[in-house]
């Protein structure tokens, strides 16, 4: 490839064609400030902070949106540039509440950081605030338009990465703001609650619906038996809130922290991930051998199920009826565990810690979520909320010992843990499906073709002569192409392109979830993914069907996969929903 040679601040650099000046500047050790640019997104060029001078151009250019050109002479900072940036920053601050102390992003806000770096001590311009109500209608993600700086990241994520188009700019000039079309509330919009907007918002305009107080209250109620579960992806990301590198596997410390927060029983969603594989894997084998509807499509991502019910209801028959691991754990806690521990399920309170904002919605998404006779999971909090709870309690997370979880609903195989990454559910399912079909274990459990950040991954797996074609899609906007392949084949009466499809709404899967610590980029996603695979490699057991506690739960309680009891407690159904409620 022909490299592009240019000069930044007088220093010659050489970059690949298409490299933006903001990235090229990193090569000379300059981090150009910005509020709207994000490595995940095409430059939208809204904030006007990243301006630089390019010889020959009368105006300043946005470094985010200007590709490096041959022979370019760029100046990234001089007194004039810094002054223009400061003026723009002050203009933004003049319309921002600047109430950092009460903000969800306090000490973790890109605007606050810039204000600090620019040494803003007063805002010289007239203060104009908009008094607009926050939209908490989804009880998953909150949109607070007062804090919005109109950088556009959320809209671009929602539209271009997720393909949902729940939010867009409305109004114009200074009344421009982010809202669903026709200014309906988020809950009436196509919003799938994936929370990617909250993960990309540079300020506190979009954030998770905080339920930490509800959890504290439940812990405080003496009569309540508080049970907690942690999702696979939480363990490789929570460390970021405590100064660890992304991808550090902190399962044991998490168990310890949860116990010290006051939970009566600490369980692991990885266990029910194994259980999901038993049910979903068996369902897949059943569909293949009994001529059921194919391809089977995974359903453990609630943002994806919400998307499918709204935008692709023609695939309802393809959906695995197996519940998500979160919901299975809730159902098992309030039935199996309650029975074993001699606790009245009405006194039990199940909390889940998820990398996800959509899980908050899933706990009450329909009647199927109350299979125990009670709401199976009472409240779902995000990784970010748990980190805050640990800090509120003053727990020194870094110096916690590794502890074990409570028995019955916690032991997991490597297959359970990889649920947290794109391709993981597929890989886990294949490890067990292979066994269920052939009655033999795989010699090599690794399915490298379904791993990684490629938006759509397809692979053919040889199950003793039977070719099983699978596809894995992550980042919601990538799924439509896969569904269309299936639709086209059906229309033309051709052979189906796939037998089994895995879908996760967030880029990278749950490790890149909307409830994870802020700042995720592909670089960080890769580290979190590596953490998950390390956890898998370290596991003695790599397949769900080998998990002894899984065997036990079937022996003691459920009978066998797809049994009547399993169906009652571990499976659910789907229905077509309107894209706009009204």
């Amino acid at each position, binding site marked *: 490839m022909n490299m592009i040679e240019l000069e930044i601040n007088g220093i010659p650099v050489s970059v690949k064609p298409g490299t933006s000046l903001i990235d090229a500047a990193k090569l000379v050790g300059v981090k150009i400030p910005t509020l709207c640019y994000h490595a995940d997104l095409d*430059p939208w060029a809204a904030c006007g902070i990243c*301006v630089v001078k390019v010889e020959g151009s009368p105006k*300043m250019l946005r470094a985010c949106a*200007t590709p490096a050109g041959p022979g370019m002479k760029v100046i990234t900072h001089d007194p004039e540039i810094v*002054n223009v*940036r400061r003026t723009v920053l002050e203009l933004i601050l003049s319309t921002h509440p600047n109430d950092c102390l009460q903000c969800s992003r306090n000490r973790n806000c890109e605007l606050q950081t810039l204000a600090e770096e620019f040494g803003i001590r007063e805002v010289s311009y007239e203060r*104009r605030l908009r008094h607009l109500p926050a939209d908490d209608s989804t009880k998953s993600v909150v949109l607070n338009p007062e804090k919005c700086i109109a950088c556009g990241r959320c809209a671009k994520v929602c539209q271009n990465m997720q393909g949902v188009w729940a939010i867009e*700019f409305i109004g*114009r000039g200074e009344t421009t703001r982010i809202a669903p079309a026709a200014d309906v509330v988020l809950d009436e919009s196509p919003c799938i609650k994936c929370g990617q907007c909250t993960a990309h918002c540079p300020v506190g305009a979009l954030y998770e619906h905080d339920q930490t107080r509800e959890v504290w209250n439940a812990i405080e109620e003496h009569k309540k038996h508080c049970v907690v579960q942690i999702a696979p992806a939480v363990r490789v990301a929570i460390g970021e809130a405590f100064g660890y590198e992304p991808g550090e596997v902190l399962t044991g410390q998490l168990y310890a922290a949860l116990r010290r927060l006051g939970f009566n029983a600490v369980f692991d969603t990885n266990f029910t991930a194994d259980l999901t594989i038993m049910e979903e894997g068996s369902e897949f084998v059943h569909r293949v051998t009994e001529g059921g509807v194919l391809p089977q499509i995974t359903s453990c991502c609630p943002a994806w199920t919400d998307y499918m019910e709204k935008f692709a209801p023609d695939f309802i028959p393809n959906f695995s009826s197996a519940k998500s691991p979160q919901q299975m754990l809730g159902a098992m806690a309030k039935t199996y565990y309650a029975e074993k521990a001699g606790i009245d399920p009405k006194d039990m309170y199940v909390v889940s810690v998820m990398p996800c904002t959509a899980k908050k919605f899933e706990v009450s998404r329909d009647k199927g979520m109350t299979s125990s006779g009670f709401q199976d999971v009472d409240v779902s909090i995000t990784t970010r909320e748990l980190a805050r709870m640990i800090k509120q309690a003053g727990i020194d997370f870094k110096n916690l010992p590794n502890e074990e979880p409570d028995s019955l609903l916690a032991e997991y195989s490597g297959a359970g843990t990889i649920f947290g990454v794109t391709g993981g559910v597929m890989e886990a399912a294949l490890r067990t499906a292979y066994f269920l079909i052939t009655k033999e274990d795989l010699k090599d459990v690794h399915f490298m073709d379904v791993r990684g950040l490629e938006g759509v991954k397809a692979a053919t797996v040889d199950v003793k002569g039977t070719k099983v074609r699978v596809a894995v899609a992550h980042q919601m906007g990538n799924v439509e192409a896969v569904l269309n392949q299936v639709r086209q084949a059906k229309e033309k009466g051709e052979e189906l392109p796939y037998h089994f499809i895995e879908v996760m709404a967030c880029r990278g899967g749950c490790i890149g979830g909307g409830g994870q610590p802020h700042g995720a980029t592909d670089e960080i996603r890769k580290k979190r993914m590596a953490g998950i695979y390390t956890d898998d490699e370290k596991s003695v057991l790599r397949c769900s069907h080998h998990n002894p506690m899984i065997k036990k739960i079937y022996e003691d309680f459920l009978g066998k996969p797809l049994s009547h009891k399993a169906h009652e407690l571990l499976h659910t159904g789907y229905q077509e929903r309107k894209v706009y409620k009204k």
Partner: protein
Amino acid sequence: MAYKNYILVCAGTACESNKGKALYEALEKEIKAAGVEAEAQLVKTGCFGFCEQGPIVKILPDESFYVKVGPKDAHEIIAEHIVKGRKVERLLYKENKAENDPRSSDISFYRKQLRIVLRNCAVINPEIIDEYIARDGYAALEKVLFEMTPDAVIKEIVDSGLRGRGGAGFPTGRKWQFTKNTPADQKYIVCNADEGDPGAYMDRSVLEGDPHSVLEAMTIAGYTVGASKGFIYIRAEYPLAIDRLNTAMAQAREYGLLGDRILGTDFSFDIEIRLGAGAFVCGEETALLASIEGNRGMPVPRPPFPAVKGLWGKPTVINNVETYANIPVILLKGSKWFSSIGTETSKGTKVFALTGKINNSGLIEVPMGTTLRDIIYDIGGGIASGKKFKAAQTGGPSGGCITAAFLDTPIDYESLQSIGSMMGSGGMIVMDEDDCMIDVTKFYLEFTVDESCGKCAPCRIGGRTCYNILDRISKGQGKPDDIQKLKEIGHAMRKASLCGLGQTAPNPVMSTLKYFEEEYRAHIEDKKCPAGKCKEMICYMIDETKCVGCTACARRCPVSCISGEVKKLHVIDQSKCIKCGQCFTACKFDAVKKG
């Protein structure tokens, strides 16, 4: 000439809204009633430009120029002029008392004009394609299709020196060249007819008066760059222009000049109209393209330029109406002819919408390089009411003001920029000593603040902040550091806004600050508006030595704040006065003072 007389009636929006339609119908009726259908042909034309005097009726061959004609005058025109051959004196345009009845081409409003873009406006009936063809219409297309290669067309346009008339002045030929050179399976030709500057109607007039010239040029552009599809993006507020375009397109298709296999060649090209909802920012090319695609009209960074990646990601030529209208003439008369008109860097003519404190407001077309003095004093007939010229604003809300010191500057792209204004799309507003520059600046800024798409922070917030500062200044609440703040924000907006709207929005502020800083200081420091325009700073008082107690002021006062008995001194209650100035104009004794 088959007819003895041709009666040209203006059917532009301005005249139509002034009973022009009824006038046309009345004339039609009178012709029938007088039985002179065989002698006189009535022609509904596009804009004459001399809107100040509309509705206009021009009779050929003697070029009688009837002005401010109403439907009730129809009978007299037909009965006298057509039937008896006697001019209707009272309706003739009178330039000055000495020179009665000039031929229209001798009228000083027209004398220094050169109508290339407006060549057919007020000459042909825009709803009849044959009239366009009779004036060499579609001859350029024929020449291009049968005699010229695309490269030859581009060379001719490049050599002509034609630059975009939408404001920025990019060389049109080069734009076409880039588009032609970008390989793609599909390319597009777009016409920007989203004219939105306050008071500007150059493009509307061309589309209403000569729609085929634009269709022909777009088709030529299509052939040149290899596009088969064109879009005209026009604001929905231009219903007459849209009608005429639709009529013209239908006729062109019928004549094989648009659509499949044009003039029997292998070249096919068709055009669709897309209506804009009237957002000013959609005149910015990337926002316009987004709007055609059905997205929110917000600008995106360039590069990539539309010539490389435009509509739906395909190479796209986007020019404005006036630019296109030049194309057929250039190709017929040659680049040499065209480039002989104008200045070193700016060739051809420019159409301006001349308004404000001027005697002859209207639509004018002058060669590039004409001075402001020629435009204002010769074509425009000087300042209305004989007051002193203060400044002219060009370039609309993106432009700046030109002061008396620059009256003799030849107008072209570069010269206007060098004196802090810009060509823009051609709005020109003349101001006299009664105009307050803060008030004028506020007007323009209010417009851009309203029209900001809200995407980028400098424009979205900076514009409003500047406007509020100006508003305070105009209300006598200016602060000492306001000028500094205006300059600071203006500078940041110019440097850090994403699109032309935001980058140029502070121009009116910066240019008035440059030339009229004293006026700002008077408002801020002395709390005085020298022009007496800023209401909050005016105080109306009654001079006790002059008041005769006639009660005229008290009777006119809409808020009844003037008290006083008949033949006794009247007094204005300052706490209730709304400073409407009614008392000032009502007083016949010069007793009401403005201070």
